[in-house]
């Protein structure tokens, strides 16, 4: 017997942070979450699994397009034709979706109730699936403690959308502890909510399959579901089933040895080549290039940011063709010559640095700078606040952190200029 366990599909939710440009593989990646889900259904049919489990967050609650539901039904119908039942529950993201209430599903789709835990039995396989859906998005009740006792002599699977304990990066919905899950004496806990794949425990199995498709730079690496094999009494194996259609990767370019922009580009070439050669499955990559290190090129990088980005984009097009989409070129270098060394020079640059060290004490200037920048943030959509961390500082009127980060770059740029 074998089944697929998946979760956090977030159908039709977009990839975030990708700004298109001339050579970016734009069209191929507009429907990545859908395509990944289709891949999963293809795998289920090809593998002839006995059933599928979806442990919550099928789609996003604030996503209104009914086509998404129709698409899901279409894919479920394919499973229905292949006689593969699906057991699914609502998580925090799809609990309150209108689509959840209106859609008419094919007979192979079985929901877990949101009022109390229920058990679905598959007699011919002697499998019992226990689970409970979220009624509200912000469910903080411990569901697990009230799950039913296991059915004796059957394979018992608990399906639950939870942050479990220790996943600070995710909201603590339906909190519970590992010991509480263990105490239920089920054979397998099919969890959802945490987007990173994790086999939390092997006896009994407690598994997060991770989300099907990475959607932003915080979700790097391969993504997919898990294929679980079992005999009548126990789980035999749990293997990852990678179905994503594009992958997020972060490339670090250590520019410590570079003295100018061409040298940084040369180092970036090596880093991107290494990324491409290390990625065997030829999937499109969305790449963040972060330039780091204490480098003599710090000033040049600050002054030629746009040029740097153009060079990296051209580089990606040359090396990866339409396989690479550069998400962002982030410069996080520090100057090769630190403040104390600049001070030792005792020249005009050093004087300028000494003056700039005092700028934060000039309240009038700092207030004026904040007000100028607030003209930008005042008209910007709120969604930008997540993408531009400085917006929060500007809106609060405290721009000291911005001044602090810009000053060394400015000094380095002037010291480099001849």
């Amino acid at each position, binding site marked *: 017997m074998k089944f697929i366990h998946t979760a956090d599909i977030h159908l*039709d939710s*977009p*990839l*975030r*942070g*990708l*700004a*298109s440009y001339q050579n970016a593989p*734009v069209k191929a*990646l*507009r*429907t990545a979450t*859908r395509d990944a889900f289709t891949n999963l259904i293809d795998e289920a049919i090809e593998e002839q699994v006995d059933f599928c489990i979806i442990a919550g967050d099928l789609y996003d609650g604030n996503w*209104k*397009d*009914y*086509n*998404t*539901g*129709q*698409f899901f039904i*279409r894919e479920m119908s394919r499973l229905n034709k292949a006689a593969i039942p699906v057991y699914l529950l609502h998580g925090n993201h799809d609990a309150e979706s*209108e*689509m959840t209430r*209106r859609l008419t599903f094919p007979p192979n789709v079985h929901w877990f109730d949101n009022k109390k835990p229920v058990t679905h039995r598959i007699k011919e396989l002697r499998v019992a699936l226990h689970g409970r859906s979220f009624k509200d998005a912000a469910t903080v009740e411990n569901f697990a403690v009230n799950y039913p006792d296991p059915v004796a002599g059957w394979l018992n699977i608990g399906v639950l959308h939870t942050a479990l304990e220790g996943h600070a990066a995710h909201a603590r919905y339906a909190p519970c502890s590992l010991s509480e899950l263990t105490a239920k004496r089920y054979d397998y806990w099919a969890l959802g909510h945490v987007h990173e794949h994790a086999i939390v425990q092997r006896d009994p199995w407690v598994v997060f399959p991770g989300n099907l498709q990475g959607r932003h730079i915080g979700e790097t690496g391969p993504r997919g579901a898990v294929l679980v094999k079992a005999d009548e009494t126990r789980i035999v194996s749990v293997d990852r089933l990678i179905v994503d259609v594009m992958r997020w990767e972060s490339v670090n370019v250590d520019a410590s040895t570079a003295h100018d922009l061409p040298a940084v580009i040369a180092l970036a070439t090596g880093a991107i080549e290494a990324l491409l050669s290390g990625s065997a499955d030829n999937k499109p990559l969305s790449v963040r290039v972060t330039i780091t290190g204490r480098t003599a090129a710090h000033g040049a990088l*600050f002054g030629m*940011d746009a040029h740097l980005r153009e060079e990296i984009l051209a580089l990606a097009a040359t090396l990866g063709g339409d396989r690479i989409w550069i998400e962002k070129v982030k410069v996080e270098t520090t100057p090769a010559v630190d403040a104390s060394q600049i001070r*030792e*020079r*005792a*020249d*005009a*640059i050093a*004087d*300028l640095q000494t*003056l700039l060290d*005092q*700028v934060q004490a*000039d309240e009038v200037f700092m207030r004026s*700078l904040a007000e100028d*920048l607030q*003209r*930008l943030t005042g008209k*910007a959509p709120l*969604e*930008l606040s997540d*993408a*531009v961390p*400085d917006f929060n500082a*500007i809106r609060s009127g405290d721009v000291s952190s*911005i*001044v602090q980060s*810009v000053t060394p770059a*400015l000094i380095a*740029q*002037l*010291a*480099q*200029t*001849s």
Partner: protein
Amino acid sequence: MRIQHLHLLRYGKFTDQTLSFPHGGRDFHMVVGANEAGKSTTRSAILDLLYGIEVRSTFDFLHPKTEMRLGATIEHQGTALEFVRKKAQTKSLFSPAGALLATSALATFLAGTDRVFFDQMFGLDHGRLETGGNAILNASNDIGQILFQSAAGIASLGIVRNQLEAEADTLWAQRRANTRAYYSASDDLARADDALKAVAVRAKDWMDARNKVQEIETSRDQLRERYRGFEAERIRLERVRRVAPALRDLRDRQAVLQQLGEVVELPREAAQKLADTELELAGAERDRELYTAQAKDTRERLALVRMDERLLKHELDILAVSEQCQQVRNHERDIEYRRREITVHWEQVETLVRRIGWPTATEEALTHKLPTLPARSTVARLVKRFDILDQAKQAADESAIEKKADLSSLDTQLKELSVSTVPAALRVALTSARALGDLKAGTRRADALVSRRSRELGSAVATLGRWSPDLVTLRGMTLPSEQAVRQRQKLHTDAQALRKTLTERQQDLNSHIEVGKLEVAQYRNAHHPISAEELTEARARRDGVWRAIKTGDKLVSEVAADFEDKLGNADRVSDRRYDEAQETSELQSKLDALEIQRQHAAENAIRQTANDDERASMDADWTQVTGAMGLAGLPLQDFERWRADRDKVLGAEDALTDAQQELHTAQQTAQDARAALGEALAGAGIAFNSGATFETLLLIASDAVDGATETKARLDELNKQRKSAANALGKQTEKAAAAQAEFDAWSGAWSAATAQVSLSETLDAAAAEGALTVMAEIDNKLKTIHDLRKLRIETMQRDLGAFERAVAVVVSAAAPELSAQGSKAAVSELTTRLAAALDDKKDADRLRKELKTHEDQAKSASERVDRAKATVLPLLRLAQVNNHDDLRALIARSDKRRLIQAEATTAQKAVKEGGDSLTLEALEAEVAATDAAQIPALIADIAIQIDSVRQAQDAVTAELTLATGRLEKIAGQDDAARAEAERQDALAKMANAAERYIKVYTASRLLKWAIDRYRETKQGPMLTRAGEIFCALTLGSFQKLTVDFEKETLMLRGLRAGGGLVDLAGMSDGTRDQLYLALRLAALELHLGQGHTLPFIADDLFISYDDQRAKAGLEALARLSEQTQVIFLSHHSHLVPTAQAVFGSDVNVVSL
């Protein structure tokens, strides 16, 4: 830091060239060279020397990169370092001896500076002067920028600022524009929002669409039912019309069959079969008769042919003898030819026999006498061997004689050579003495060094001036750190600069206050405006009288006039105030402005006092520090120079001690060496003068040892040569004996071999060789004669005999009558007769074949007749008749019945096909129940009904298609997902633009703020000093530099000697370059006052100056050379006298 020597070892065009920059009165050095002499190379060399040779250096055109070398001796505060710089990324610093130096070896000399800083701050050339001049013109509205650019040596500050502002403007600004990245992305976002709204589908939309489809489907089903009813009636009427005629035909045929009664059923093809048989029978009988007649005729012609059987029997034998006859037809003539050839060969043999002196003999006797081939070969081999052996014997004899002469000569030379020896002790002493080198020169150098070091110490002590404690105290002093002193100096300089700025500001403010006061007084005099205080005062006086009246203190009658007077005055004052409101306001404005100036003056005065206090406090603190060190009165600004002088004194003292020690060591070494050498010579018994110097002793010892060594070497060489000559003589003697023995052996063999071939043993080798050649020729001729006789003549005679015998046998068997004829004639006759017999035989064979063919054809025709008769026999039996006529009548009846039956079957099939699977009975009932005449009208009616229902159906179908289309559009499309992806795309672009804008805008603002502050702190001292230099460079054309503080934008101007102000745009290019130079030098002087010193490299600065201005420029550099080393590169040798005029005749001039 300064450079003492620069070694251009392998760099650019230079090879092992050294430029020296000794420290004179002022540290100024002029490097002169024509164009292409290497000035720019020298400048780059200093940069590469200090900070490493650049990776992509272009100075490798003579020396490859791997061999590029620079060297130098540099010094800083009394410490010197000599090093070599190679081209390498790491490990590029080496000592002169080749030892690797740490990268940090230059750290104290360079004090953390980098290449860019050194080049910008301490390097200046004509190109940079021009760029700088243009840059300050471009920045003429910003004094801060001018000062900063000049001080930092960066001409592109304005460019950086402009780039920052321009980039910020392309990203975002308050004014919306599509060209700005943020707004462009914002427009994309709006479009994506609209697209999302247009394509997103809510759950209710889908429900509505689905209900509509269901409703239309119900209507469509009802219409479909009605259509089916009409269609069924139409089909029934069509069926009746279709099957009624077929039903009628069926009934008619069935009646005809009934009438025809019983019929013998014969096969369908019976009639055809009968006709075919009758036709075949007639043809076969005709052929049978024709072929029988032809056979009879052929048989008769065959009987007439006759053949010669006897000849035909011996056909092969006759052909064989005919073939043999052809082969032997020329044999008799050939035999005669060969016999003649033999006669000719024999005559030649007889001639050869006579040539070697043999008697004439028969062929057989001659053959027996001729020697065998092995015997002749032996003689030939010995002939060839003779020359080799003879030459070897002669050569060996001659060589033995030469070797004997060599040996004798060597013995003579050995006897004449005499040998002498020296003891080993003398050799050891000589080697040690030579290793010490030139002791006298070493001692002299050490002595000179001590004298120089003493003078240097004296000079160094003198530089300390009145702060000169004894050397022990000086060494033991604890001094404040260089950084601490520099910090103090910086604070002091800043405070002084601020004092000057504040003082100037105060003067300006006081001047403005005085002007303001004068303006107020003049305005007041001109307009007499009523102030608020005057009005209040007039009203107070009026109200005072009125209060006295109200309180009863005064009677109305008493003060009425006074009250009226004050009332009137107050009203007049009031009226005037309001009539002259504008003047009053103007006056008040002037008073306010005056008050603001006073306020500024008061604030400035407070800052001056605070500044005075701060400077006094710093001075007191410094006085305390110097007092504690015993250096009371040493000014702060002189302290670092004093420290450097102190370090030089201590360094000089250390150097003196080292030199004295070295001198002592040299003297002691010389004494010890002389004693050792004298002792060794005495031991060897070599006489010398007891008062001889070390050098004399060294010469005597060298002669003795070198002479002994040479003699010994000669003796060894001669002995070696003699041994070699003796060995060679022995070997040559052995070789001569061996050659003689071999020759003797050959002579014995020769006698035996000549006897074997019947030649005289006295015959020499050459004659014997000729006789052997003749013998070989005779042998060949005899062999040819033998071959002609045996192989040719006798073979042909045998062939002729065999032919005669074969002919006799054939003739007796085949034609005995020809036995009387000759063989060849008989063969000819036989051949002719055989040809005729063969022709007869051929005719007989052809006729037999024809006869066989005719007989076979006649037989075949008979068989066809039989087969035709058998074919029709079954039909006759089936019809039970005996002849063909009866059979033909029965066949016609059978065929008619078959035709009627087929027509009935066709009618039945038509009924079945058109009857829509109804039974025959049902169809007959349906036809009977329908009036056939009405059918067309009924069908037309129904067609109208059907058409109406179809139209309704079409309308519903279209409606359904539309509704279904709407529903199907909500079938899981991804349009909304794509629109949302485009939204995120736009948001990402906006975020990128905003993120960069925040950085760039902030940087731009910070830069502007910092430059303003920089101007506030630096403009006083820097402009004052720059003004002085500018005055000198322009030969007094300009007095100083001024700033107009009252303008909103502070403008830098030059004050003409005549009092006129000239702004930057008004200056000529050359003047502006001079201004930039003045600013750079002023900034450099200020920097040197507080920072680390490095050499200033000036490259052809005064390229466009006339002599006077060039002198002024050199004077400006003279002041700089008091603070740091100045290396002035120029291709103008005419500047040398000018430099000597400024720096003194001993100024260091280096020629390239």
